């Protein structure tokens, strides 16, 4: 594979994992605009464990994932008191606090960032991304996934059907936070360097866009959304600075014509239906 495409693929793999982190809460109807905060915790967690304690990535990555999942649980309780825009903004504020704290802590490298010595190569990233993808597909096919989608549509009714709403939502934040942290840990080890400035509001916004543009109805959404966001700007590379403008136009057009995201259940049903039809004929 060419060096260029392996570079792009590495970014894509991390974006996919990250996007699934946001997707898991979004399927349950919770928009998380604090993705960068979770990712930063994972990245700095892995970096610190690696540099301070000398752990290898085989240890730092799971540990950082677990750490972020715990943070997810911790933050879920206050954040779940809020709804809609308030939740979006609460998670946004959370991310701002995380990066703000990193910037003010010399022990975390402050504005200078941290160098990460242990390197994790592309095959690992691809493997983890594939595993996460399969895991999330599996998750959405379970009763837990069904409960999440029900919470997304109508929380009160879901509760009246016996869905343990709070537990499911907290689980969503734990899994989602963990995945974002996993993406951060892999980021740290692959790019060998972490800095607070990278985990900006813009990053949170982008990853939420991956998910919303891809569609929150099925697990295909983040996969398609992250790929779209990672690969289309590359294909537009010849356009120079114009590529972002074109890209913005594509986003707006997408929302005009496919407001529920690129992949919807109806679309899948239609594709599957066709296939079934074709098989029969």
């Amino acid at each position, binding site marked *: 594979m060419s060096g260029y495409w392996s570079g792009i693929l590495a970014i894509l793999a991390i974006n996919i994992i990250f996007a699934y982190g946001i997707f898991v809460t979004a399927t349950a109807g919770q928009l998380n605009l604090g993705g960068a905060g979770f990712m930063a915790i994972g990245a700095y967690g892995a970096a610190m464990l690696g540099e301070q304690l000398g752990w290898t990535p085989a240890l730092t990555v799971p540990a950082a994932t677990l750490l972020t999942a715990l943070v997810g649980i911790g933050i879920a309780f206050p954040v779940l008191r809020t709804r809609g825009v308030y939740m979006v903004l*609460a998670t946004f504020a959370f991310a701002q606090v995380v990066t*703000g704290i990193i910037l003010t802590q010399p022990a975390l490298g402050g504005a200078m960032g941290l160098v990460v010595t242990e390197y994790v190569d592309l095959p690992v990233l691809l493997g983890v991304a594939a595993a996460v993808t399969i895991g999330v597909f599996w998750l959405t096919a379970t009763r837990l996934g069904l409960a999440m989608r029900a919470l997304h549509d109508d929380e009160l009714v879901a509760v009246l059907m016996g869905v343990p709403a709070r537990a499911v939502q907290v689980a969503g934040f734990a899994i989602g936070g963990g995945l974002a942290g996993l993406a951060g840990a892999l980021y740290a080890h692959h790019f060998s360097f972490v800095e607070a400035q990278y985990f900006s509001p813009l990053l949170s916004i982008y990853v939420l866009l991956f998910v919303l543009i891809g569609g929150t109805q099925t697990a295909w959404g983040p996969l398609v959304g992250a790929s779209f966001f990672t690969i289309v700007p590359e294909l537009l590379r010849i356009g120079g600075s114009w590529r972002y403008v074109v*890209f*913005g136009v594509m986003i707006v057009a997408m929302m005009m014509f496919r407001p529920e995201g690129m992949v919807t259940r109806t679309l899948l049903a239609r594709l599957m239906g066709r296939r079934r039809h074709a098989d029969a004929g």
Partner: protein
Amino acid sequence: MSAAAGVRGAHPLVVSAGVAVGCVAAIAGLAALPGGATLAQQVVSGLMLGGIYVAVAVAFTLTIGVLNFLNFTIPTMFMLTGMVAWGLARHGLPFTEAWHWALALPPGIVVAILASLVVERFTFRYLKTRHGDATEHAIPLVSSLGFLLIFEHLVLIVLGSDAQSFPVRFRLDWQVGPLVVGLPQLASLLLSLAIVFWLSWLLARTRTGRALRSIAESPDTATLLGVEVTRIVPVVFLLSGLLCGVAGALFVVNYSDVSPFMGDHVGTKAIAAMVLGGLGSIWGAIAGGLLVGLLETLGIHFFGGDAAQVVVWTVLLLAIVLRPQGLFGGSRIGKGKL
């Protein structure tokens, strides 16, 4: 609608006059204390900084309170005013020598309004809510982010990524004893207040106000009742574009510089202000704006520049969690649509 509730409840005119008198007295008292001048200056700076946040926060509140639409392009409108005005003035437009910098600002505002209308045309106009669940209301959020990309990069292409100086050459500070008060900021505060009075009256009491609130709830039903949604909604976008434009112009006059990213910081702080005050409550936006400004300057004074950001966002996080409706907000707005 909390804006309406605000009018029906305490009389905001009385309240705000009282608050203003109280503030002036407090600052004067503080300045008179030995060594209090510095702190008094910080309080003044904070309130003045808040003045800028207020205008943008009101613009945010307007679209979210009236149309239930969290419009992320608002910081871009703010930025467009400054950058377009700079671009024009740089090329000597409009052609009046000494004043062309100041004269370039109104066209900048016009561009912000036009941009806002373009956003309306391609986002709100296509917003067809179907089922009313939690995330599909993110649609306007996403498309307004799309526009954010478009406008920001257009500006980058045409005008470059640098901050630029915008040499407005008139002294606009007001020296009161040991204190320096920025007149443009004061003006933006007063202007926002005036607009807010008018808006809250409009929403609560007029036919147009009711139509707007109907649209906020259900554009489809409003249409069936005879509301020309496509004609009324642009008015809101026009207003919010105007507010951002004016805020941007006053910003430029005050700080004498512009940059393609000048909206980002103001934008996030204005959102914080809006949330602190309560979504959809225009009175809340005013209180929130001033509060965030104060929190920021006092945070800087006591804890330093970085910690101040942590302070602001922590306070916000706590506020959302402890009092999700904000200081003045109704509990309904913002829970459904983004």
